């Protein structure tokens, strides 16, 4: 019941705004923010109520038959993976509502309604345990996003939004075929929890799902819709797009592709991992030369999500946990980056790097926040990005599910991240202040309130990620056992690392031999 409340409360907000829109702008904003905040507070109950000792889906209540003749039911629940994505969504939405406070020039009620409807759609995707339900939410999510970019976007918004929607739908058409194929192999049921392989044509099914998700991630070379969508989307649209929507792709991989089709996943790993690594390097290099701040951040997402995909296909606990954590991290850091870019855009009506320089002097608070977020994105230890990236790289290297050469290249991406982010930061924040920027005001109280919660989590996850890792550990572990049977080198065996134990065991063995000889 709790979970359903969380999912549909924003939809209630949509109805409320529709009915009460006559009360004026501040009422609309007030309702939207209140709904967003209440949803977040209620969703915290999911965290406290979640039992981390088990990998099973929880808190969804009993499934309700929806279309009984077709085996469709309203079946929801969360595990340690979706828990975090749900919380990320409910956290980012009120942040976005507050961030958009003064930036919507026309159709405020429509904007807020789209945003809240989008929240319901996203939450539904993360919570659905019925494939049909999942698909319904997956598609319904596109509509408000289409409006957000298409109505409140920039100059080329129509091109961008059509590209975004068609690209996604091309993927979901494939996925629909996959879902139907699974349905017929599962005694005419869409229930995800009863699905168990091996399936017929699992290679094709894997690909059907994977392509849909790879577009969403976006994995190189399916990424070209992203820079366009980001550049044209309003700030809040970019935040949600980068923060949550991209995670649908990686979430789909960990929820469907890996556990349902382990053999196919194994088979296609040599194809996917190079693409992930290319994405890391390529995204970083292309980000480096972007003249537009938003495009730079967009390409940096291609690079960051490459890390996530790499971790997922490392198929070991550290890599997968790192990937899930990195999904949250990317949502926070890149979300924060888009918010910051939006804040200077509102002041200067430009996102071109050349138009800035020396802003540190005029906007010290902005500079400080921007620096921290930049460092988080670079993966500086002590901030969130490092923990995720480190776990991914470490897991991928130690596990050896694929050649270490890939990990070496991926690690080189860490150098490039510093290059493009620090160069951008230097050109925007350092140097001498241009005359046209002399009167830009520093962050106001509202904007500081928008950024503070993000900074809090950026530091928290960096310093003490344990609460986050603990809740996901069992669920990730289940996925790992489904895709991989043998324990990897370096894993703990009864609390002792395998490697060391091997060494110690031999020593003991030799000792006893020597003792026997002396006797």
């Amino acid at each position: 019941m709790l979970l359903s409340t969380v999912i549909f409360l924003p939809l209630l907000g949509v109805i409320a705004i529709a009915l009460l829109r006559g009360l004026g702008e501040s009422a609309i904003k007030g309702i939207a923010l209140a709904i967003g905040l209440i949803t977040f507070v209620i969703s915290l109950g999911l965290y406290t109520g979640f039992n981390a000792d088990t990998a099973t889906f929880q808190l969804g209540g009993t499934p309700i038959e929806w279309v009984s003749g077709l085996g469709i039911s309203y079946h929801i629940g969360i595990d340690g993976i979706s828990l975090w994505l749900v919380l990320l969504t409910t956290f980012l939405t009120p942040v976005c509502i507050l961030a958009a406070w003064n930036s919507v020039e026309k159709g405020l009620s429509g904007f807020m309604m789209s945003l809240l409807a989008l929240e319901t759609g996203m939450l539904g995707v993360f919570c659905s345990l019925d494939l049909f339900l999942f698909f319904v939410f997956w598609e319904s999510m596109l509509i408000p996003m289409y409006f957000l970019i298409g109505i409140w976007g920039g100059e080329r918004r129509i091109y961008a939004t059509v590209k975004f929607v068609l690209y996604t739908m091309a993927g979901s058409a494939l996925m629909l075929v996959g879902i139907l194929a699974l349905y017929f192999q599962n005694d005419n049921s869409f229930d995800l929890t009863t699905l168990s392989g091996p399936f017929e044509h699992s290679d094709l099914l894997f690909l059907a799902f994977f392509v849909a998700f790879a577009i969403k991630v976006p994995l190189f070379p399916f990424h070209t819709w992203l820079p366009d969508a980001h550049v044209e989307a309003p700030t809040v649209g970019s935040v949600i797009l980068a923060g949550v929507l991209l995670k649908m792709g990686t979430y789909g991989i960990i929820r469907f592709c890996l556990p349902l089709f382990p053999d196919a996943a194994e088979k296609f790993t040599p194809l996917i991992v190079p693409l992930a690594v290319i994405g890391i390097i390529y995204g970083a290099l292309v980000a480096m030369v972007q003249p537009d701040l938003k495009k730079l951040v967009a390409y940096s997402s291609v690079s960051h999500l490459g890390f996530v995909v790499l971790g997922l296909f490392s198929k070991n606990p550290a890599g997968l946990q790192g990937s899930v954590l990195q999904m949250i991290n990317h949502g926070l850091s890149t979300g924060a980056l888009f918010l910051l870019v939006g804040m200077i855009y509102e002041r200067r009506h430009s996102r071109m790097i050349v138009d800035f320089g020396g802003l540190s002097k005029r906007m010290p608070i902005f500079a400080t926040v921007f620096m921290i977020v930049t460092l988080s994105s670079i993966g500086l230890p002590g901030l969130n990005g490092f923990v995720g990236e480190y776990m991914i790289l470490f897991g991928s290297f130690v596990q050896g599910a694929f050649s270490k050469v890939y990990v070496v290249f991926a690690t080189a991406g860490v150098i490039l991240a510093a290059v493009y982010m620090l160069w951008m930061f230097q050109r925007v924040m350092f140097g001498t202040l241009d005359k046209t920027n002399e009167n830009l005001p520093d962050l106001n109280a509202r904007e500081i309130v928008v950024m503070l919660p993000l900074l809090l989590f950026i530091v928290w996850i960096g310093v003490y990620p344990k609460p986050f890792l603990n809740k996901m550990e069992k669920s990730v572990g289940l996925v790992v056992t489904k895709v991989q049977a043998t324990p990897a080198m370096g894993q703990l065996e009864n609390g002792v690392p395998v490697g060391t134990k091997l060494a110690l065991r031999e020593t003991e063995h030799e000792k006893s031999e020597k003792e026997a000889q002396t006797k």
Partner: protein
Amino acid sequence: MSKELIVVLLAAPLVGFLINGLFGKWLKGNEKLSGGIGALAVLVSLVCSIIAFTSLSGGAAPLDETLYEWITGESFAFNIGFRVDALTAVMLLVITGVGFLIHVYSIGYMHGDEGYTRYFAYLNLFVFAMLILVLGNNYLMMFVGWEGVGLCSYLLIGFWYEKQSATDAGKKAFIVNRIGDFGFLLGMFTLFAAFGTLDFTAIFDAAEADNFQKVFGASTLVIATLLLFVGAIGKSAQIPLYVWLPDAMEGPTPVSALIHAATMVTAGVYMIARSAVLYEIAHTGQVVAWIGVLTAFFAATIALTQNDIKRILAYSTVSQLGYMFVGVGVGAYASGIFHLVTHAFFKGLMFLTAGSVMHAMANELDMRKMGGLKSKMPITHWTFLVGALAIAGFPFLSGFWSKDEILHSAWGSSPIIYVIGLITAFLTAFYMFRLIFVTFYGESRVEPEVASHLHESPSVMWVPLAILAIPSALIGLLLGWGGHDSWFHHFTKSVFPEAHHDASGNVILFMVISSVIGLAGIAFAWTRYSKRVPSDEPTSAIHRLLANKYYIDEAYNALIVQPVKNGSHFLLWKLVDNGIIDGIVNGVAAIVRFIGGLLRRFQTGVVQAYIVSMVLGIVIFLAYYLFFT
């Protein structure tokens, strides 16, 4: 010594950072308070370090404790934990001791700067990160500190952020260091793959176990130690990644003294000394020693021709770090760390005196525009002279002891390394005294308007100089008397493996040779520069090559930076991304639209046309069934 002590030691600079960082706006009007908080924070750490040190030297057991679990899972555990043994204690004293004096000095030096509180916030943050680096009981903790000091270095080099050259230098430092960190990360992964942990104790114990090599083969450790050394090359500015350190002089001078001479840049040496056990087993010390000695020589040759005081000191630092790597590379770990300690004092001192000169000379750094400063700035002159004599290996001053120990051990390992080291010692003495003679002696070439303000620095600056001068002169004698039986060797004996090639030959003879070489360098500088100013134009091809630092920066720019930038712009972005990939995407859309456009023609709305096509279809189907099935 207790865990609480270490927590206080660490927390003090962090608190100082937070106070100056968060409340800087309100502290801005009160420089004394802001700087005082910064210095006090480090003083607290210094006191804690002294307590830890005395309890260790009194025979207390080293501390090795976990504070909390950081990144853990069923199959891996990375914790926040500390290890305080003799090596750590030495580093702690250097960091907090030199650090405290430099904080005090900065109170005066940074007077009137717009970013006063920001400066002390960064400086405290640096001390905090540096303490983490040396206190960690595992490689990951070391890496956390490693990146932390890199960040502070970046922030402080680019402290005057309105200056393009300063922010360029900061960025360069961070990126070049990241290249090193890339090696460090992979080194850690390699170690974890073999040992299942990154804790020092566990790794060293397992590596020392008899059968380790049987199980894993020596190659694992060879790879791991070489990868770690890549990290050290970056952080400690060795060939080929040294290029960031000379540029780092764009930062405020006390920063150059603390971070880019005394502490952070020595982190690589510390790392190798810490991993001594692994380097002993892997026999990769030779690589370390060779890189070290080549860097020492190479950087010294560049220093010969520079005219910017701070740049000379920077190349000198690169060169001296090379000596330290020779020390730890040939297995003389204690000697390498010993040189780290003496160098921290005398090089820190020289940077601060350079700062004092800049302070008096309206930030002038070109020594050709100085001359005769001795009479105007006597304390600055004398303290600089102490530092220069110490680095030149003047008998019984600090550098004499530590450098001689390294050279002596190098002889036992490879006579060629020894000879190159000795030549470098000559060059060192020469370029240092070239600097002294041109700056402090001879006729004044100071421009008149600067000369009228020429003065000795205020007491808040010269007192730290005077204090630093004492250990710079004497610490070598105190800690190093007796060579390999010295107090320093005894104190650090527990942390380092036994020296495998004991220094051979007559100790006194080595000392005499070193001293003569050093004195010869000084004398040669006297003959060349006591009366003469360096020429503005290079006089020969070699001179030009050296003055342009072998054109290494230009080469890196032409071979790496520009190709990557242009390749990314034109090839990847414009051609691959916009042209090919997006071309295909839009191409598919265009094809669909085209086909749609064709098909649209059939939807004419003319009923007769539909009937014709229907009939035609029926005829074709019938024909097919009749004739082909």
